[in-house]
């Protein structure tokens, strides 16, 4: 009986679990409920992913009203793939959070933490599955509001200014998207994405539509921290509790990249965006600058969480680079990197959270000599770090590999070289930490304390992510087929361009 209602469940389950957590009151029950609901959503989204691989697009009319009048839940392979990643990582982070927030968030707020986490999950899964442009704005606001709350739960006072800056820039971004959607509605009279796509195709280069696209792209770039608009991300991820950084780093910005892909490829159609508006050159330039400047900034930081935050902005540069290559292989590489980066960054932030729990500091000096004292955590950190660099047998290598092939396919030698050069920078900032961990004696920060291994509840999710990293590095069948069908689906209208090229 529930088979045809599956697409809507990943949204309403966390939505109903959040108020239940408040009614339950005690944080243990809230944690149990949150983890169960998140795991259930993960199972459902994997099942939805498998059905989309066979049937293509799943459509579900909310309220029984047909799409252009009512709101439609529209899940295709791309959204199902990222939805599975988001719900999976949310489950692992919730398991991880039980121990991690015990020290970083004061006990009276644990229930509120789980409620805000569930609301953020609702918002993200809502963005991924809705087929209505304004509904996307509403779910974007739900996830953003929950994120500001989560970031401001940190123990360090600087998390407050970071949360405030994130709030102001996030709201400006959301209002820009609102202006863009308003202009779209003004010219086409509808809000459903597929309907919008058909009606926009009739206008060739209307000034209002161009401005609408520009505003939406700027708004979404603020949300995904593309290079010039990324200033809110490093302080937010550094001063937020590590469970929150782990969850946000691997999901929030990735969902914003999905929104950009949805607007560029589904609604406006790639050839309008990339040829008449020549957006590909702009995105390409910003992506490359993002990769190099932020990787360089990562190498000079002393706080390991800031290093990872800057590395996230750099990795987003890779995704945008994949998208701006205007080819189905490039888009596939971008989608693949979204999935793989979620695994890598989640594991890295969890490892750093474990170090913070045991040594009380995330400075690079605290990492000295941890190779021996916290072997399992540092091993997880090493493998995930290698995956960021793109060493073979890891998921990072797969996405880097397809990025380079996509670039070479279009004879863009320079871009291929730049992607490899970017990995060199990654070697430097990951290497610095590994060198401190394995080849240096414990510094004065950690000399006195005897540092035990991280608790089991934190090690298990960390290692699940690391194993997933390696598994998807070797057997790429599932992720590759999902990304490929998604790319084909999104770039149907692109085929004439390739023919024309």
């Amino acid at each position, binding site marked *: 009986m529930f088979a045809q209602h599956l697409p809507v469940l990943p949204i309403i389950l966390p939505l109903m679990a959040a108020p239940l957590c408040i009614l339950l009151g005690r944080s243990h029950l809230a944690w149990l409920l949150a983890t169960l609901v998140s795991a259930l959503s993960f199972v459902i989204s994997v099942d939805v992913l498998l059905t989309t691989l066979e049937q293509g697009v799943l459509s579900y009319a909310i309220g029984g009203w047909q799409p252009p009048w009512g709101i439609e839940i529209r899940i295709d392979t791309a959204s199902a793939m990222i939805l599975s990643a988001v719900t999976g990582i949310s489950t692992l982070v919730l398991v991880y959070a039980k121990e991690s927030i015990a020290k970083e968030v004061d006990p009276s707020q644990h229930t509120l933490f789980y409620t805000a986490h569930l609301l953020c999950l609702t918002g993200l899964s809502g963005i991924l599955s809705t087929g209505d442009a304004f509904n996307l704005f509403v779910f974007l*606001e739900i996830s953003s*509001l929950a994120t500001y709350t989560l970031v*401001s739960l940190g123990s360090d006072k600087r998390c*407050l*200014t970071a949360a405030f800056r994130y*709030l*102001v820039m996030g709201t400006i971004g959301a*209002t820009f998207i609102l202006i863009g959607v*308003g202009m779209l509605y003004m010219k086409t009279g509808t*809000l459903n994405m597929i309907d919008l796509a058909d009606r926009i195709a009739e206008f060739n280069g209307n000034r209002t539509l161009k401005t609408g696209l520009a505003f939406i792209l700027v708004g979404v770039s603020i949300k995904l921290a593309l290079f010039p608009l990324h200033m809110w991300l490093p302080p937010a991820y550094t001063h937020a509790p590590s469970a929150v950084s782990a969850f946000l780093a691997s999901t929030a910005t990735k969902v914003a990249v999905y929104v950009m892909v949805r607007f560029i490829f589904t609604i406006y159609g790639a050839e309008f965006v990339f040829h008449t508006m020549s957006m590909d050159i702009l995105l390409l330039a910003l992506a490359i600058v993002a990769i190099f400047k932020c990787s360089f900034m990562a190498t000079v930081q002393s706080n390991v969480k800031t290093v990872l935050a800057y590395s996230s902005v750099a990795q987003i540069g890779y995704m945008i680079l994949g998208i701006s290559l205007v080819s189905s292989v490039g888009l596939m590489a971008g989608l693949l990197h979204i999935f793989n980066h979620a695994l890598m960054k989640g594991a890295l932030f969890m490892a750093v959270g474990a170090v913070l729990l045991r040594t009380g500091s995330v400075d690079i000096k605290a990492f000295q000599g941890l190779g021996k004292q916290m072997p399992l955590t540092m091993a997880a950190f090493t493998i995930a770090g290698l995956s960021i660099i793109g060493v073979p047998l890891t998921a990072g290598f797969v996405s880097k590999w397809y990025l380079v092939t996509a670039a070479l396919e279009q004879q863009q030698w320079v871009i291929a070289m730049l992607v490899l050069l970017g990995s060199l920078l990654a070697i430097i900032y990951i290497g610095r930490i590994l060198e401190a961990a394995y080849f240096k004696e414990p510094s004065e920060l950690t000399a006195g304390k005897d540092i035990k291994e991280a608790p089991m509840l934190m090690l298990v999710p960390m290692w699940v992510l690391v194993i997933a990293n390696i598994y998807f590095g070797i057997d790429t069948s599932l992720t590759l087929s999902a990304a490929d069908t998604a790319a084909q689906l999104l770039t149907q209208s692109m085929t004439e361009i390739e023919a024309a090229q």
Partner: protein
Amino acid sequence: MSFIVDHYNYWIVVLLMMMGFYVVIAANNLVKKIVGLNIFQTSVFMMYISIGKVNGGSAPIAAEGITTYSNPLPHVLILTAIVVGVATTAVGLALVVRIKRAYGTVEENEFEDKEDLI
């Protein structure tokens, strides 16, 4: 002349948006930033509502003897957006209160010397 009469609503709304946007960026006091944010959002709502207006139409509540109505859809969208705006303002003001308690000041230039803004 008719070109101006048909578009004056949009131009004044754009002017208001830019005033709000300027206050958000240039304001040094955090409370004033939030006031600017509100002005910016309210002017975006006005753009939406002026899309929905039909000349000679009346409010979209069915009453006998009235045929042309204004478009109800922008009104629904803006009802949602207003509540979203107030929710963001409430969280923003709560953050300002906490920042005042933690830093002792709400002036943005006085943060920089207190901690290293990355």
